[in-house]
């Protein structure tokens, strides 16, 4: 299986898929699954029960007034909150042990969308790398491209022109607005408000329209590349952006009234899925989950990149660390992003949109016909790609879900030697057992949706 196979080397049995009995597949994942209690190691048992802070083995998980964790095995039920489920936001499989409706312990089983992107990343040149990375977090593709490009530029040691920096910030914030709108839509849908789904997608279509106008496609843009951006903003982009952010700003009031006004929504989110600050830190949770516990950690503010230190915006911090706080944080972050976009609108500098270093960015199409040198550069960049000096770098930025980072090692060739993306959803999802413990199955849906996991970036 490892070597490349020539076609038709050995005749695989051509199974006719339509008329026979149905292929019984192997969905058994053995050790990765939630095993009955006697077969689970004590450390793992404590982990699944959500007692994260390493208590000595004998103390019962959590405080004694907690749920009856010692319910006999035949009374409890292990169910699959499985890969194909309307409210798991993709192919997450949560295995839960239930005592009636109360969740005793949980174990996320992931990997159902593993695409081998880090292996593919080692096969593509830096020029092509953004196309692979952009398909990881499919709710904010531009954020992946940004982190990949910034890592490549850090290794190259080049400075991108100011206009490229501001274009990147504009697109990253528009992407945050679109991603949070998408989250509001699916979170509303999960908690029963299909109107929010319609609202959320209607606004998101406007932002996607702007992306289509700027980058050419609605998703998976490959627009932010090492060395700047692929093209300049279309002319007349200011009033497009202005129309979008004014409409969204005005409509946020309706969403607030629609969701916060609903007693059902409040009942299912207030106090549900609570997480304390120590647990969030211990589990390396980042983004709205960490901020909901009261820690004001937003990379745009604390470790600023691009030109975020010159912008005035607030970091939103919650108090209880429950679902409602995470909803309030994301809701207000849309307003903060709109505030940032307004500042970017009137401070966007003119000039080049990509660095003029001929070794890194291809020359404009028109000059290829006139100058032989431009043709050579164009040819070299697109066939062989540009060489990056040897070294390793870890750049991290704030994606709508948390800290997304790219650890890149280069061996001096035109392809990254190792390209690892630290997915915020991969890490945030590990705090699910802590948040789901003791809640109802319905709370599990609300909490999974409030963690906003994107399986593309967690399974990579």
């Amino acid at each position, binding site marked *: 299986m490892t070597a490349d196979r020539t076609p*038709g080397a050995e005749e695989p049995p051509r199974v006719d898929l339509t008329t026979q009995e*149905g*292929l019984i597949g*192997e969905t058994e994942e053995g050790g990765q699954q939630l095993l009955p209690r006697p077969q689970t190691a004590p450390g793992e048992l404590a982990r699944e029960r959500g007692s994260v802070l390493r208590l000595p083995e004998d103390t019962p998980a959590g405080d004694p007034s907690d749920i009856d964790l010692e319910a006999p095995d035949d009374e409890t039920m292990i169910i699959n909150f499985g890969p194909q489920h309307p409210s798991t936001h993709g192919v997450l499989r949560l295995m839960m042990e239930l005592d009636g409706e109360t969740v005793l312990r949980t174990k996320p089983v992931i990997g159902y*969308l593993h695409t081998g992107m880090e292996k593919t990343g080692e096969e593509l040149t830096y020029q092509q790398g953004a196309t692979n990375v952009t398909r990881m977090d499919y709710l904010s593709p531009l954020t992946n491209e940004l982190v990949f490009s910034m890592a490549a530029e850090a290794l190259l040691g080049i400075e991108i022109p100011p206009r490229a920096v501001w274009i990147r910030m504009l697109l990253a914030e528009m992407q945050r607005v679109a991603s949070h709108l998408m989250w509001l839509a699916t979170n509303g849908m999960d908690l029963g408000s299909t109107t929010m789904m319609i609202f959320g*997608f209607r606004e998101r*279509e406007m932002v996607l329209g702007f992306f289509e106008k700027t980058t050419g496609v609605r*998703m998976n843009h490959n627009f932010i590349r090492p060395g700047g951006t692929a093209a300049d903003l279309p002319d007349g982009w200011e009033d497009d952006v202005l129309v979008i952010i004014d409409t969204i700003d005005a409509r946020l009031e309706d969403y607030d009234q629609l969701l916060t006004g609903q007693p059902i929504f409040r009942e299912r989110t207030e106090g549900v899925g609570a997480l304390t600050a120590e647990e969030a830190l211990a589990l390396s949770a980042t983004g709205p989950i960490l901020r909901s516990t009261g820690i004001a950690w937003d990379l745009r503010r604390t470790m600023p990149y691009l030109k975020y230190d010159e912008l005035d915006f607030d970091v939103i911090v919650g108090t209880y660390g429950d679902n409602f706080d995470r909803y309030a944080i994301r809701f207000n972050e849309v307003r903060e992003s709109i505030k940032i976009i307004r500042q970017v609108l009137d401070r966007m500098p003119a000039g080049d949109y990509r660095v003029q270093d001929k070794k890194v960015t291809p020359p404009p199409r028109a000059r290829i016909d006139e100058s032989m040198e431009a043709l050579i550069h164009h040819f070299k960049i697109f066939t062989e790609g540009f060489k990056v000096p040897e070294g390793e770098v870890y750049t991290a930025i704030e994606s709508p879900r948390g800290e997304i980072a790219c650890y890149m090692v280069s061996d001096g060739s035109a392809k990254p030697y190792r390209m690892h993306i630290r997915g915020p959803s991969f890490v945030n999802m590990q705090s699910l057992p802590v948040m789901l413990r003791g809640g109802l199955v319905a709370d599990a849906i609300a909490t999974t949706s409030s963690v906003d996991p994107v399986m*593309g970036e967690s399974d990579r």
Partner: protein
Amino acid sequence: MGLEDLQHNFLTGRLEDLVKWSRRNSVWPVTFGLACCAIEMMAVGTADYDISRFGMEVFRASPRQADLMIVAGRVSQKMAPVLRQVYDQMMEPKWVISMGVCASTGGMFNNYAIVQGVDQIVPVDVYAPGCPPSPETLLHTILTLHEKIRTGEITQRRSAAAARSRQIPGWTPERPDDVRVATPR
């Protein structure tokens, strides 16, 4: 005796049309969103591109109540048996749309982790190109499926002979033996 034993003559012509018309106009997809295509599939379901104009009002979560499986996204090796299980549990008559190049041919991820084309696991009716296919493309795919239902056979949707005749002679599709779908028992 069942619909499939119906003789094709002028007496049963109208009945077939009626059955096909009713099936065509109420195809309910099962939510099988995997990756980026799923976001576009959801966008098709909402107000801007509204598929409920074509009778696909609601995305059924359980395969028992669905007629169409839109494989929206890349199918990993771990997901292949799950996809086959959900397909088997769907009620007859059922159709499959392979949405996006990753589902149709493995797309840009020609590596160990992705099943190179979902037609190695489930019989596919319509392939939607694009990465991700824009909602208009998906709507066009759905209309193609409706056309296929309207003109196709009532139940002998894909007899084995038809599937084989479509293949290019001399080229047998390479089916990696590690697609974790065991032969039927």
